[in-house]
């Protein structure tokens, strides 16, 4: 019996010595050691900018949703390709629901940006304040405001949270106009802390002016009350900055566009380290890899609508500069042969229909080779699946046209001609004369093609619910329904938080 006791005791001792269940982390940083050094603190806010890279392609859908819901750009069904469950066609026809891919992903991508900014702010608030930290906080608040600008622009009333730590578990929506007020107040309040310099990836004071200009020019849409004078004030602030129109319409869109004189704020893209810009893959023909010596085959999809194509006059420089059409040649000068028709590849610029299949009577040539493709963003020789061109979110040309717009709105037709003329003459066209809102909207469509402005513009000019090409009228899809001016809050989000269904606060 004694030996049993001794043995049990031994076992018990061993047991206590070997009850260590602490988890040892090897390839991740433990909560209590982060941040390990000053560099990690300095890099804190970078994720907020990195979140921007999701906005362009189908990870975050913002760019696609702004352009494909408009009258100039579309994703036609080409037999078995680009049907994709109807997700492209329903953007054009405004028949999306609260469970559509674009609606779902845009929400996540934008709130990712907000959350990253709030988390950084929470961490910065814990550090001993100094000038650099205060400047960083202002930068983060500006970036957060940018994401909220996208959120209220696309979704209207949304939850407005300014801290990650103290956020309620199930937040309610806040009215769009209240968020608008808070955004303008916040950004105006931090202006002195922001760097007044031309730094295209950074949330600078010029970027803040540009954001305020965008908020105020859309004030009527966001709040019901126009604020053209305030908009004009901030447009002027941007225009007094170190930016100027370039002579070449394509200069802001070249592969190495980080030094463009036009760009105020852009998303930094790199084919390796900052991926997410794949417009060339979506637009180029399957065999266009031969033209650009690409090692990957593009997907033969997105293209211009007949409406926009037909609106370009033949002397408009932008028609050839922005679009790929006609017979296509490989980089060595030989004719490209289309793999479907086995004939020389000729891109016919006018798209015959939004949905093209053989059993609807379309030929292989129509299905595969129609609709002018986008070359506004330079496609580098040897391009990979991602482009290295930065994506300009704010560029000075837009502000010229915005200046013209607020002048027309405050002074009547023709009041903004002086700011439209430089844009037109650069495009090889005559000076603007007596431009009203309709001609300005058309000019914006031709100039700012595939830059992510179209949906917002059509809404501000009250044309978004008009029928066009294959939307409304004789075609499927909604027109005259103002509810499409906002995307619904995704179903997954309202499923996770019932409070999002309640009336906004």
């Amino acid at each position, binding site marked *: 019996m004694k030996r049993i006791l001794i043995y049990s005791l031994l076992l018990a001792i061993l047991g206590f010595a070997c009850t260590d269940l602490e988890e040892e982390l090897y390839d991740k940083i433990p*909560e209590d050691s982060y941040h390990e050094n000053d560099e990690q603190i300095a890099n804190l806010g970078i994720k907020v900018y990195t979140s921007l890279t999701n906005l362009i392609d189908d990870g975050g859908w913002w760019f696609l949703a702004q352009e494909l819901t408009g009258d100039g750009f579309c994703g036609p069904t080409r037999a078995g390709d680009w049907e994709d469950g109807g997700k492209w066609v329903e953007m054009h026809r405004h028949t999306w629901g609260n469970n559509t891919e674009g609606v779902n992903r845009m929400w996540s991508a934008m709130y990712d940006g907000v959350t990253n900014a709030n988390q950084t702010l929470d961490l910065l608030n814990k550090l001993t304040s100094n000038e650099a930290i205060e400047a960083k906080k202002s930068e983060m608040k500006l970036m957060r405001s940018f994401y909220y600008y996208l959120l209220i622009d696309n979704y209207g009333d949304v939850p407005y*949270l300014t801290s990650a730590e103290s956020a309620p578990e199930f*937040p309610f929506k806040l009215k769009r106009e209240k968020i608008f007020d808070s955004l303008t107040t916040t950004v105006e309040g931090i202006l002195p802390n922001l760097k007044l310099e031309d730094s295209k*990836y950074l949330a600078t004071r010029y970027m803040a002016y540009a954001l305020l200009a965008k908020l105020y020019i859309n004030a009527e849409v966001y709040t019901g009350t126009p604020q053209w004078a305030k908009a004009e004030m901030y447009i002027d602030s941007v225009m007094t900055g170190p930016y100027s129109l370039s002579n070449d319409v394509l200069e802001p869109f070249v592969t190495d566009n980080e030094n463009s004189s036009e760009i105020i704020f852009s998303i930094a893209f790199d084919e390796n380290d900052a991926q997410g810009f794949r417009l060339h893959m979506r637009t180029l023909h399957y065999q266009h890899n031969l033209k650009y010596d690409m090692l990957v085959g593009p997907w033969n999809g997105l293209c211009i609508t007949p409406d926009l194509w037909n609106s370009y006059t033949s002397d408009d420089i932008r028609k050839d500069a922005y679009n790929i059409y006609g017979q296509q040649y490989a980089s060595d000068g030989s004719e490209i042969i289309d793999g*479907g028709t086995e004939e020389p590849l000729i891109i016919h610029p006018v798209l015959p229909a939004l949905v093209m299949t053989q059993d609807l009577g379309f030929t292989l040539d129509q299905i595969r080779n129609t609709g002018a493709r986008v070359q506004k963003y330079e496609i580098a020789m040897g391009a990979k699946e991602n482009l290295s061109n930065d994506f300009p979110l704010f560029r000075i040309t837009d502000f010229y046209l915005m200046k013209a717009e607020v002048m027309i709105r405050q002074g009547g037709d023709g009041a903004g001609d002086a700011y439209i003329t430089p844009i037109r003459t650069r495009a090889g066209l005559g000076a603007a004369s007596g431009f009203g809102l309709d001609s300005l909207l058309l000019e914006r469509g031709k100039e700012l093609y595939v830059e992510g402005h179209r949906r917002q513009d059509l809404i501000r000019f009250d044309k978004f619910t008009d029928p066009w090409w294959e939307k409304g009228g004789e075609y499927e899809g909604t027109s005259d329904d103002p509810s499409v001016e906002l995307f619904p809050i995704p179903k997954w989000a309202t499923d996770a938080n019932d409070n999002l269904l309640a009336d906004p606060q």
Partner: protein
Amino acid sequence: MNFLNLRFLKALFTGILLITASVAFSQHTVTGTVNDMDGNTLPGVNVTIKGTTVGTITDVQGQYKIDVPGNDAVLVFSFIGYSKEEITVGGQKTIDITLMPDIEALSEVLVIGYGTMKKEDKTGAVSQVTAEELNGGVVTDAIQTIQGRTPGVTITKSGGDPNAGFAVRVRGANGYGAGTSPLYVVDGVPGVDPTTVAPEDIKTFDILKDAASTAIYGSQGANGVIIITTKQGTSNKSDGNEFVSNVNFNSKISLDYTANRYDMMDASELRNYVQTIADATGSNVEDIFNDGGSNTDWQDEIFRTGVTSSNNISFSGGNKKSSYYASATHANWEGVMKGTSKERTIGKINVNHSGIDDKLRIQGSLSGTIEHNDYENYDGWDQDDIIYQALSRNPTDPVYTENGGYYEANRVFNYQNPLKIINKIQNERDAQRFYGMMKADLELVENLITSARVGFTQNDYVSNYFKPANTLASGNPGDGRKQYGMDNQKLLELTASYSKEIGQHSLHGVGGYSWQENYYEGFYAQGESPISPSIGINNLQNFIDINYEDIGSWAGSSRLIGFFGRVRYDFNKKYYASASLRRDGSSKFGENNKWGWFPTFAAGWRIDKEQFMADLSWLDMLKLRASYGVAGNQDIGNYRSLVPWELQGPGINPLNGETVINIGAAWNKNPNLQWEETAEINIGIDFGLLNNRISGSMDVYNKTTTNLLGEVPVPVPPNLASTTFMNSGELRSYGFEFFAEGYVYDRPSFKWKSAISLAHNTTKVIDLGEGFDEGEVSKRGWISGRGLVGDQNWVLGILEGEEIGSFYLPVYVTLLDGDFVYLSESGGYTTELSKAKRQVVGTAAPDLEFGWHNTFTFYDNWIVEVSFRGMVGNDIYNATEMLFDATTNIPDLNGLPSAVDWYEEGRTNAPSLADFYV
């Protein structure tokens, strides 16, 4: 099936001698009666003359009559459940005999957690499958040998890929967030990969099914426990110090075919369809279709007859002190899909030694496995998924061009020649697995045995992937990747067991401590644009294009600690009771909840031993069992309770445009993360009938799994990351299991042994837990394919009150303007999937699983096995039909003939979900 059967030859020689002998003596008749110990007569007993096939059986009164060739003849009396008796006739005319119960049969030993017990003493739901009962044939994994043998154990595998593993579920899947595979214990070491054990080396499988049996493994027991005991060297043929040795050799070969091919259109059917649409639209055929000019059956091109072979040699031997068992097994599986194969070699040594007057016993085991795998991708619809590419590829396209190259075309995005994919892409893996175990038992004082066991397993693998430039029709720069991974497990267990019998009371106790640590690490390197296709992945400097994230590595560890004890008691082998308790800790759980308690209680009652049952002579055994236990599950990834900050890829520093690396939260922390628990009640009956000629058992159970572990999506903000691992939700499973085996026919010349197993399990969701409101669905069973985009393409729904595996689908009503019309959520009709009302239209869970195994033995030497196993009442969603019955991709791609029928009905929509695909 023995390759060489020496026994058969021996029997033949004895037969010849006997025939010669019989000439010398006159024949006479012997009669007699056969009784059992209690004096009951035994009908059906085999009475044969030794060495011949001459024999008879006893009648209902237990009487027999047989002509014997002479006085030297030996009568053999044999009967299932009784020891065989041999009696030399001598001059006797009447031979009455009493057969004794076969002690060995009754004392079959079950291996249970941390101990063994006699089969007749069991109180929980434990099944055993012994070596003789294992499924024959060439098997890819040892677990396949018990497929259909044990009710309540579902073993499935899809497709003809030898590299695909088996899904094993004991009494249904207990959850959906954490792992649902049972715990494997090999020779006492938990957590061993069962594929490292050669089927030929296995002595028994013991399957612990109810929580009362599994909870001694606490944390790891909730999904059932499968204990594999390997063969040891035998010493029972030796009378002492003499060393007796055996050699066994086994060789098997088998062929595999594809059972079902898809009925895709052939080239002429496709051409007819093109003509039809050309006529309908007034187009020229040449304008709408590019005819490849050939006639190819792409399934013939990618499928083949797979040849599979297995060879095993084993040596064993021993004397009373020492024994050994050593074996080597080599198997090679060729998949029915070209480009898939697996080759595996397993070497194993088991050694036993006893000393200090048998008070010390030492057992050691070493095994090593080397495996080579050749893979193809086939379960998606990417460029390199060969089944999708073959099914969808245009049958008018030839395989090769006129000058012998691969024919390529550019009909649609992602259109690839599957033969080129199979032959050009290298996708291989080499793995080595090591297993070592040592155990020492010391009888410290009488009846008290203390044991220490150490175990170590390590798995290493290297995988190589290489895709040369221009493998794809659309062009590709070429890429390659080399990856190395390793995981190991260290185990220490200290136990003490005590057994005592006082009069009619018998007591067994065991207690112990268990410590287990797992560690894993690995790294990879990859690149694009190789300069040399022949160097491939063998020199990574071959790749010119290398970027951030082209190298990477990982490492992690977890620990499990347990204290446990169990007491078993029986009174006169009539009343049984047992209880156990385990206190288990896992490093994976939150700081507030690392430890959990796992108690069990069980009782048994041998009803047949009661006075009132004594008259039922046909009933040999009837035991009622009842058990209750709580077992746990901790099968989730590591660090899930912490907020680990992880590297989240590169970003551009806006200040200077330089690349930096972002850091972010992997998931949210949850200091309360704890055990998933399964509480189970099991009631069972064991029976033996007609002198144990038929025996079996029946079990019913009801188990409730609470605190289900899962990754719950949470809103960001307010959370740091979009997922938190938490415990929430509840499941309930109930079902029954029936097993019976016996001899249908039992003669020396021919025996027919039959075993039947039946099982039913229902698993219902009681509570979906966090993140789901009343009436909400957890979406599962996502289908991907061309044209299926968006988040509606799921077919399985987990709903409260419904079975797990329920098909939850929109209800098709009719075709309208070419679209599917469904019932809508608002009560009307809709063509939009997202607005369609879904309902449960079937379940993947079967109503009944059955197995029926028959073993026919001819002349004791030739064995034929016939087995049936299957499921009844389970539904299947025909995703292939759905993906290929729409005309949207035809004629550029191929489809099913049903697509043409749909076309004629006017359908124009893309592949869409519908209830009728179930």
